[in-house]
């Protein structure tokens, strides 16, 4: 089986960038309801910048860890914001994992959880705080479980995608305890977490890349 290499990651970033661009306004609208309305802008612009940057990289030579490190610094410098440090740290944690040794594509869940750990380390959110980690962790764990049960890449991809979608919906029932929306207290109830929504988009891009490469 093939491992998570640069080409795979580059394909993920391309796919995610396209979809975030398509959902730019929808994500801004979600963020407008309980935040400051910029989430779609940050995510779409940030991933577009990663994409532009990766296009310029000598693809052959870059290790997958290097791709993630570059994505981290590009994203951070482009958007700053709340998501900048969070995703930059996520990518760096992912890079560290891949530096430790090649990771089989089926083990994508481990990369997802590593990234979630990065987000958590940086943002200090707990599960249930109505943040993006409420989507990253369940999705990662579902993918790990599917792989552990011997699922095919397509099955792992399906598990990842489904879990992300479900987890995104659960954020509706949470009261925000981190980030801007936390000032709204109960008023954040009944709304999707925008960071959770964009997380689901990125996770779907990972899943689809896994499924289509398989």
């Amino acid at each position, binding site marked *: 089986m093939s491992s998570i290499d640069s080409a795979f990651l580059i394909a993920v970033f391309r796919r995610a960038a396209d979809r975030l661009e398509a959902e*730019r*306004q929808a994500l*801004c*609208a979600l*963020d*407008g*309801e*309980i*935040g*400051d*309305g*910029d989430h*779609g*802008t*940050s995510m779409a*612009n940030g991933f577009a910048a990663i994409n532009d940057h990766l296009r310029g990289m000598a693809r052959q030579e870059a290790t997958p860890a290097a791709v993630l490190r570059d994505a981290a610094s590009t994203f*951070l*410098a*482009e*958007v*700053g*914001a*709340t*998501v*900048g*440090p*969070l995703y930059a740290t996520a990518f760096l944690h992912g890079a560290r994992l891949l530096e430790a040794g090649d990771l089989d594509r089926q083990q994508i869940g481990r990369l997802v959880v590593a990234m979630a750990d990065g987000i958590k380390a*940086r*943002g200090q959110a707990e599960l249930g705080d109505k943040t993006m980690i409420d989507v990253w962790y369940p999705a990662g764990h579902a993918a790990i479980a599917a792989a552990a049960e011997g699922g095919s890449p397509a099955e792992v991809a399906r598990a990842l995608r489904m879990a992300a979608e479900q987890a995104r919906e659960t954020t509706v029932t949470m009261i925000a305890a*981190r*980030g*801007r929306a*936390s*000032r*709204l*207290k109960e*008023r954040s109830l009944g709304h999707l977490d925008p960071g959770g929504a964009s997380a689901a988009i990125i996770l779907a891009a990972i899943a689809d890349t896994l499924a289509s490469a398989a």
Partner: protein
Amino acid sequence: IKKFLNSPKDAVNEALEGAFAAFPDHIEPIDGSPRAIRARAAKPAGKVGVVIGGGAGHEPSFLGFVGPGLADAVAVGNVFASPPPDRVLACTRDAHRGAGVLYVYGNYTGDVMNFDMAADLAGAEGIEVRTVLTSDDIASAAHDDRAARRGTAGNVFVFKIAGAASARMYGLAECERLARKANDACHTIGVAMESCSMPDTQRPSFKIGEDDMEFGVGVHGEPGVTRVPIESADRIVDQICDRIFAEMQPRPGDRVAVLVNSLGGTPMMELLILNRRLRKRLEAREIAVHSTLVGHYCTSLDMIGASITLMKLDDELTGLLDDPCDGFAWSFSGRRPS
């Protein structure tokens, strides 16, 4: 919603270019980046550097508060988004005159993470950095949870006090203490009649009912803490005052500085109407007004709304507030003690 814009994604850089063109005596880019900006005026060696910053969309904040007696440098992010660490670091290096650097910015998750990363990087270069988070918006968290509150228009007063302290060549610890004290003295509540709209969407970020307003809004077009029916200007000021007084516990003879701030779309005429009632409420409590700012100081794009800030003064804060300052949004020749 109609706006004067070119490509939305260029809006921030274009606005900054426009600002450099308009205020060449006050601001200039550091190393050519329009997003890391320094005061034009020379800064003496041994002066504590004051670095401020935050997202764009609050113009004339924050860049209008850079200059003698105010901040030394400002890092600018995207609209309502913290600047990334590299820019904050560029400001830090530029503002450092051997006496360390004080960061003063609003208490938001994004800003805290980015500025903290910059502080770590600066520390690694041997620049001592201290941080004061502004948290004047008393509506945004309970009294016993002041650390969770966000920074809004009170920023302006905290920048002024920090800048004055550093201009007096106080040390880093003293500048930090005074900025913190200024922040503790600031109490702000904002209300919004209509949401703002981002350059990128050009649609209202959220809808407020025909007869409603949002009470306790910040400066990022967020919904407020509660949605309440619109009332007369006087009743709105009364609600704000009730809330601020409950927190500030003013006593007869206390002195305050006042800021009546437009959130963007509310014109000065209405701010003045608010200030009238505010003054009556203060007089009734025998609170003296030392000085007043009324206008567009910390906006939330084109949001229709206003905020009121009271900074409770003691002699120390009064003295610093009365020092001269010269940013393009606040230029003041100073007032000698009477």
